[in-house]
């Protein structure tokens, strides 16, 4: 099994029942997986939530995480997001220090990154920016010289491109993950 550490995104659809978030979080932590981000949101179907987990790990981590999560009673579908065939977004809100001298520089950067200014004060700006992880990281880097007062990110959400949907995924592939022929 490959021991190369890779970033991965796992999407699951769960029954929206009492305690489901702590159930997923508890499993992830007690099995020793280190997740970078976890988002929970509503879906097109009432009573069903979607969670997206991003983490780094090797092939063993990937298989165990998917298999262990699939055993949870509330988990309906689970799949790994294919980087090449999906759209992934993170949303950033960032508050920076500005002065009359450097405000225009900040606004230029926001324009180039296609972000938007959502709060404009005498010596600060709150900027909103959506994009993939690389773009957001680059923007945050760019904001550092201004002085970042505070920031938060939503964590990753992701959808497959085209007609592929998580709810149509065939869970049977999980049982075939250990075929090595």
């Amino acid at each position: 099994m490959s021991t190369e550490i890779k970033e991965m995104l796992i999407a699951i659809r769960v029954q929206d029942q009492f305690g489901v978030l702590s159930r997923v979080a508890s499993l992830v932590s007690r099995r020793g997986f280190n997740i970078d981000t976890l988002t929970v949101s509503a879906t097109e179907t009432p009573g069903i939530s979607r969670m997206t987990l991003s983490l780094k790990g090797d092939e063993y981590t990937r298989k165990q995480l998917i298999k262990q999560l699939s055993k949870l009673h509330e988990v309906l579908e689970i799949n790994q997001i294919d980087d090449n065939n999906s759209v992934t977004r993170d949303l950033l809100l960032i508050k920076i220090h500005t002065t009359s001298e450097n405000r225009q520089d900040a606004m230029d950067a926001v324009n180039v990154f296609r972000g938007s200014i959502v709060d404009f004060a005498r010596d600060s700006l709150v900027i909103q920016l959506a994009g993939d992880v690389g773009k957001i990281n680059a923007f945050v880097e760019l904001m550092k010289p201004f002085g970042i007062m505070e920031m938060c990110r939503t964590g990753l959400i992701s959808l497959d491109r085209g007609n592929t949907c998580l709810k149509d995924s065939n869970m049977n592939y999980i049982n075939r993950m250990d075929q090595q022929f």
Partner: protein
Amino acid sequence: MKLSGAKIIIETLIEQGCDTVFGYPGGAVLDIYNELYLNADRINHVISAHEQGAAHAADGYARATGKVGVVLATSGPGATNLVTGIATAHLDSVPMVAITGNVGVSMLGRDSFQEVDIMGITLPITKHNYIVKDINRLADTIREAFKIAKSGRPGPVLIDIPKNIQTELAEFTPHTAPEAPYATLIAANDELSMAVKMINEAEKPFIYMGGGIYSTGAGKEIRALSEKIDAPIASSMMGLSAIPYDTPRFLGMQGMHGDYAASKAMNDADLIIAAGVRFSDRATGNKDKFSPGAKIIHIDTDTAELSKNIEAHLGIVGDIKDALARITAAVEPKEHAAWNAACAQLKKYAESAYKNYGDISPYEIIKAVNRRWPADAVIATDVGQHQMWVAQTYKFSTPRTFLTSGGLGTMGYGMGAAIGGALGTGKKTVLFTGDGSFGMNLNELATAVSQNLPLTIIVLNNGVLGMVRQWQTLFYDKHYSSTTLGRATDFVKLAEAFGAKGYRAATIDEFNTILDTVCKDDGVNLIDCLIDQDEMVLPMMPPGGTVDQIIVTRKEISE
């Protein structure tokens, strides 16, 4: 028909096939106990001395009968006292439904008297758990709990039921039959063909069976496969009793304290067919050096077990019994005379190597019981040296007769388990325990006596925590930190104080004489056996060690 929640609980339990509830009453389950009182002719309740004992009893009942064990406790301390019992069942994949009361829904989250978040506490040690906040969901939740507990890889399910849910009224529609388990996945044909090919090509095939064979009753399938491909068999501790000890080519238990022949042969195999096992660290030793020349076919109903601890060359998910039967039907019959002769040679060497120690050897004690008790007697143990001696020595011939805590290694498991096993089967039951383990839950003697169980308790009393002492001897320069108990407990008087009969044996002759009397008695008997504190469990593969490091005889231990 509108019924109270408490009545719905009882009706649903009966509907799901539950005949015995182990438990302990308290404030948050008074309504349920009232219904148990009113329905005493339909469902039996067994009160334990402590909720932990009740949880272990439900576990022992489930292991011995194959049915779902049910335990009931009140909120707060009643619920937390179940935790060790639930975790024990979880680690050994035992089907159990635990029901706890809680404070009323409006009182939840306010640190009310005897309130505890038992759902949160048991989240990582249950297969699933619930808190029922809507009485209209109560019956279906209980049904689903039974279904989950017994489906696929079994496990414990907890249902927390606030007090107001027990008193409210709701429409109840009885079901005519217990919930059927979820359909078990059936192994794919191409995977099985691959397994068949690997088996046909193997020169030294080896069958390794575990708790999955015990719980699915697939002993017959294991034997048929072994017969057809002429392969030796070893069992993990959890698989013991699933096939009779005298099955041809059966080498016994493998692993840390397993039979030398079983562990060594497994190491030498070129193909391991592992069924219903999880390659625990106690079974494999150093995982990187485990059976280096062997390809591994791993069959289990739980996909997450495949390649979790030991990477399998071929992982097969599905019904174990079915997969084994289909493989057996498709493989070519084989003879591996040289391979089996080598295994037999190992077995012979192992049997001659170990020399008993002390006036009253634990091995002789176990053999003496084995000779006198019926083949279907239920044998329970606690955890420690005595447990390993029983696992190594007792010749099990009937499935589901060995009740022991393998995964969690719960000292104090035995008394409850023996009670549950005896009640569930009605068979004569023996508990082998140590003075350390017995000290943890000996209060359940009260339960055994009150239920008038045919239970014999053999205390292998060495005055020390023998297994820990053994590690201290071998790995900690004989620093016997807190393992020399220095207690003056008189187990004979203790047994009598609880209303049981007590005996003491200091020699094997005394023991045999006592046993002649006790084996004819149908009540609760305790025999305090004074064994040497330096008795060891051998062979022993050091933790994280390899087959080459197995200590087989005492001579190999430098004094």
